[in-house]
């Protein structure tokens, strides 16, 4: 049993070995130890989705996980979406549709949308809404966000 533990994980394609406190959340470790501050902290009770990252293909709330739980897993954060320094199709689509207002929820929205489109490349409006239901937007840009996801799906299928 331990109070700290060295975990091995792949974050945004790069494998890392990190020593973490066992009582730190994944969100804390990503932001404070790995310096990936794109993942946002907001409600910290699993309601808002600002902290969403993709772990082994599924979107999860990093505020609800201990960092030790990603030992052996593959993690993608919003910083992992760009391709060779360029925005990917989904990110560009968010820009085109003006989906970001204050922008705080956007990293989480992007991660949920990424996971959704991976499983379902051609979603309906309802499926986008359901897929992103765990991501709240205080600016209430839901229409634009939904549009952006649908436009990205179309673009990716061209």
């Amino acid at each position, binding site marked *: 049993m331990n109070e700290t533990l060295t975990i091995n994980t792949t974050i945004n394609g790069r494998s890392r070995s990190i020593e973490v406190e*066992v*009582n730190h959340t994944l969100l804390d470790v990503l932001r404070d130890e790995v310096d990936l501050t794109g993942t946002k902290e907001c409600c910290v009770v699993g309601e808002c989705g600002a902290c969403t990252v993709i772990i082994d293909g*599924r979107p999860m*709330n990093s505020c*609800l996980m201990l960092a030790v*739980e990603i030992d052996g897993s593959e993690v993608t954060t919003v910083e992992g979406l760009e391709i060779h320094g360029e925005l990917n199709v989904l990110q560009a689509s968010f820009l085109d549709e003006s989906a970001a207002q204050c922008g705080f929820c956007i990293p989480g929205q992007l991660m949920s949308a990424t996971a959704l489109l991976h499983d379902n490349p051609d979603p309906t409006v309802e499926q986008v809404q359901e*897929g992103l239901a*765990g991501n709240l937007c205080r600016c209430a840009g839901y229409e634009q966000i939904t549009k952006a996801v649908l436009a990205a799906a179309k673009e990716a299928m061209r």
Partner: protein
Amino acid sequence: MNRFQYARPETVAEAVALLEEYGDDARLLAGGTDLVIELRNRWVEPKVVIDLKHIPELTPSITVRDDVLSISASTVMTDIAEDELVQRHFPALVEAAVVVGSVQIRARATLAGNICNGSPAADTSPPLLVYDAVVVIAGPEGTRRTPVDDFIVGPGKTSLGRGELVTAVELPIPQRPFGAAYTRLTRRRGTDLASITLCCGVDTDGHTRLAYGSVGPRAFLEIDDTGTLADPSVSIEEKVAPLDQLFHRASPSPKSLRASPDYRLAMLRVLGARALETALGRLTKEQV
């Protein structure tokens, strides 16, 4: 969070030994969607957190043996919702699994955790009661099995004793046509804690099983053997009275912010009638 030790047992026996040693100072970690909140708010301050996800026999799996479907302890809601066997035999459980939290929560929350937390509003309790699920428990004396109806005790309470943990939930595959449906009442569409959770199951021998939660200290199971409710030729108007009787244990709290007691009681009837109709429809389909 307080400082605690993190344990990662590799066998059920090791986990049981830790639980025995630490008792109330130990907390089990499966999905963590409830535990991490409790830790952060210091509602619990354990000496040790025992992560169950490295025990091979508890890793996510849904298997069938001798007409019993077994769902291991760290199987998450997304696994359950996507599983073809569960979809085929236990559609009402799928209906409950897909409304738990959000996509992110369902990727993490386990079925075992859902019933172990003992929330009266747990979505999966009513279908597990209707499908007559059995909870498999490992403990110092070995393995025991208990019907989910005996396992669920009250808010935050289960029949787990010291040193015990849930290793799986088993559902007997109905051997005769059985139709079931799950429904719930929320304040808004989408992610919300339910004000009513309700599941109804009917068979061709006139048995109706109805379970409802979020309107009392725990989810209750009622069985009607009169045949009236399960008879598709009896009108829904004639079923109102017998259906009402099944809700005699409902005692919604006036303190809840989600819905008033009167509203919940009124809606129980509506949801009960709806779920019964859907269950009967599915039963008819099963027979053709």
